[in-house]
């Protein structure tokens, strides 16, 4: 399949370890944030979202943290598995209908 993100920042993590992917967003007016996972040759897949009235939200093996003071978002993946290898994007809303995506981080899981 095609390669997504040839020159993206890369995070290499040992299988079983926890991963932390960071994202800085630009618009202090954004009130909704999403993390997406994109595997090679596929469209982005929704992982987890968070609204600006929350600091933390947990899903299955994933946690999103939001720090509005410094406009920072992070995605934590517990017990990283080979299937987690992909490019991860954060997205913030701009107004009601538009989403702005970050540049992405490639996660490589080492066996």
């Amino acid at each position: 399949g095609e390669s997504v993100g040839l020159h993206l920042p890369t995070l290499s993590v040992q299988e079983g370890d926890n991963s932390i992917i960071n994202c800085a967003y630009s618009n202090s007016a954004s009130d909704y944030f999403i993390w997406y996972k994109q595997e090679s040759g596929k469209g982005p897949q929704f992982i987890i979202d968070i609204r600006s009235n929350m600091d933390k939200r947990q899903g299955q093996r994933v946690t999103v943290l939001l720090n509005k003071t410094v406009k920072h978002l992070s995605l934590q993946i517990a017990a990283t598995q080979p299937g987690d290898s992909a490019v991860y994007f954060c997205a913030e809303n701009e107004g009601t209908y538009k989403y702005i995506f970050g540049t992405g981080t490639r996660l490589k899981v080492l066996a």
Partner: protein
Amino acid sequence: DAGVTQSPTHLIKTRGQQVTLRCSPKSGHDTVSWYQQALGQGPQFIFQYYEEEERQRGNFPDRFSGHQFPNYSSELNVNALLLGDSALYLCASSLTQNEQFFGPGTRLTVL
């Protein structure tokens, strides 16, 4: 329940030509958004269609136009193709303002 589908999967055009890409939203979804994803970058919002009208537009020239049909499917048209239009074109559908489901994309190559 079918997810978001897009056609064609791949397309090769030459400069100056016109192209039409198609998207069928996830069952029950009434809103379709189109994104352009250049290699190594995050998706960029082109526009969103709701009730057969363009509801919001990103920073793309008028060469990019679209349409939504009564069955909520959508088309993206690009006229006078440029080399820089080569990218993965993603369609995303949603019912609410928030969670968008992406299709696999159409890879457009302009020669």
